């Protein structure tokens, strides 16, 4: 139980064994190269130390290169979002920096009723999806990891295999199905469909966390006369909180960023969500309002960025816990 709670911090702790990756027998070579012919204990250690130092700075330099490459598009998004339309259409000078920063694009979007609708729809659908997904997957994971029934083993492996049938295969038959139940161009069809994207993985994460809870804990509760619901609510959910946070973030990410289903099933602006709304609203034929598009991207990326900034450790621990165990 305590091991379970300590999981996220463990993710960030590690032994600083920098020199371990460098060959042990290379040390004499280096000391010979540096000219210290009398390889006494101290010079030996300093050259090893220096080598480690080089490996460390080399790693930092390489990581810095990767960070620059990875952050280039978000940086460009920010720069463009601060430019006025005039500055963008002038097409002169360095596009990577903004000369006359302005918040006009952001102000335009915040006061733009369509954008408000998209944001509200996205928030609403995401909250509904996360709630539904978490209820379904926590109940199922509890049942699959602890109680079991005929065929529950097949189910727990089978659930994960549903990812072999990706949404890009399902959206065409679902187009017919959604149409036949009358939910085409309604945000509610997304509330029905998004859980299918999140639930298998959330269930998998939760099964992992629930199985690591010692059996003695729920047996003791059973002997004390607790019902299964009480065991789930009073023991399993509090103890597996890191896992629940990880699964919730996953469901949130999926629901907030999904693009295919809303693009296929929604077509009026009062029903659209952010991912498709930005594209269909701010790109009119050949007119690209890049400043506004980039500002909208930034505003739409804000909730995930904030959530990850605070809860990243839980998420990373949840994602990697199952895989490293298996």
């Amino acid at each position, binding site marked *: 139980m305590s091991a379970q709670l300590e999981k996220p911090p463990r993710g960030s702790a590690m032994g600083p064994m920098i020199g371990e990756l460098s060959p042990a027998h290379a040390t004499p070579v280096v000391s010979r190269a540096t000219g210290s012919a009398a390889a006494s204990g101290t010079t030996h250690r300093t050259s090893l130390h220096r080598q480690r130092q080089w490996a460390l700075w080399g790693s930092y330099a390489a990581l810095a290169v990767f960070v620059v490459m990875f952050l280039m598009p978000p940086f460009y998004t920010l720069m463009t979002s601060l430019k006025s339309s005039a500055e963008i259409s002038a097409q002169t000078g360095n596009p990577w920096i903004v000369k006359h920063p302005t918040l006009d694009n952001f102000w335009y979007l915040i006061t733009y009723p369509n954008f408000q609708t998209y944001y509200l729809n996205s928030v609403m659908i995401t909250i509904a999806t996360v709630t539904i997904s978490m209820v379904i997957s926590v109940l199922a994971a509890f049942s699959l990891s602890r109680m079991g*029934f005929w065929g529950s083993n097949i189910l727990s492996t089978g659930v994960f295999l549903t990812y*072999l049938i990706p949404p890009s295969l399902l959206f065409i038959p679902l*187009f017919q199905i959604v149409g036949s139940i009358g939910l085409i161009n309604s945000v509610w069809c997304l509330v029905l469909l998004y859980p299918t994207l999140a639930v298998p993985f959330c269930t998998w994460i939760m099964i992992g966390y629930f199985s690591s809870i010692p059996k003695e804990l729920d047996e003791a509760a059973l002997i004390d006369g607790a019902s299964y619901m009480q065991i789930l609510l009073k023991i399993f959910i509090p103890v597996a909180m890191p896992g629940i946070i990880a699964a919730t973030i996953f469901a949130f990410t999926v629901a907030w960023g999904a693009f295919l289903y809303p693009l296929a099933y929604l077509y009026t602006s009062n029903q659209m969500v952010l*991912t498709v709304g930005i594209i269909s609203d701010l790109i009119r034929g050949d007119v690209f309002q890049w400043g506004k598009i980039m500002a909208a991207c930034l505003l739409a990326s804000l909730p*995930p960025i904030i959530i990850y900034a605070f809860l990243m450790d839980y998420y990373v621990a949840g994602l990697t816990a199952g895989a490293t165990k298996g």
Partner: protein
Amino acid sequence: MADGTSVPADMIAAAPREAVRRGSMKHLARRKSSVAFLLCLPLILLITGFVIYPAFYALFLSMLNKKMTAFVGLGNFAFLLKRHTFQLVIFQSCLFAVTAVVAKALLGFIIAHLMHNIPGKNQRIWRGLLLVPWVIPLALSTLTWWWMFDPSYSAFNWVLNQFGFANVPWLGVGWIARACTITVNVWFGTPFFMIMYLAALKSVPEALYEAAAIDGAGARQKLFFITLPMMRNIIAITVLFSLIVTFADFDIVRILTGGGPQDMTHVFATYAFQVGIQSGDIPLGAADSLFMFPILAFAAFFVLRGVTQRTKDIAA
């Protein structure tokens, strides 16, 4: 549970009571499994209703004609396979998925090693910075890439011009456009590999490296005989998961190129969308997207068989 542990001497006297108790235990067990089934019911309904049923429905749809009035058997599949555009789609889908997954796996491995080299207390901030591409919704970051690839006044072309090179029509020429879609996918997916590999690297016991160092193993030997074998399962699972997601990718190609130029960047998903939703030929779109399943199932079968094999070997 105290069932079946009673002392034999008491058996005769307690027989009727025992029978009642055993009956109630059986009853309890039955109740337990029916409660368990009920708790799983929402999951089962969701998966059956919106994954399994639509999958079979897709199979049915794919065998109809365009107006969905007559049964044509495998006609749609045969039609697609003969079409040059669809042959391009198969080629590009496989090229896209394989190249992108290999690149992501390699880069992720390198970055994870670099991260493993630096002290633990600094790792958090670097990891946070490197995870940014993966945090931003893909459809939105692809918009930025689109803008950076813009032919007239793009960020990349400006840099090229500064170094005296001519403008590159990034998304206008087939093979360059293909490379662009792969680049965006690699940019988005590498952080996922990085965190999975980093976790795997940390789970390798330090004692193994120490023992190898005493035996005189070099860095390369440690990599090939300790790190990689210890990480094999996690590499396999990460690659499989990424392969599925990359193969089924829709957002990048749809936004960046829309399948063009000359249908050279279409993948299964975007082509199915164009044929099925935009042109209204639902059966043909369903047939197109169904091609994904056997390929994915084939990959999954071999990867998972390898993983269970290795898990058994370790257990034995």
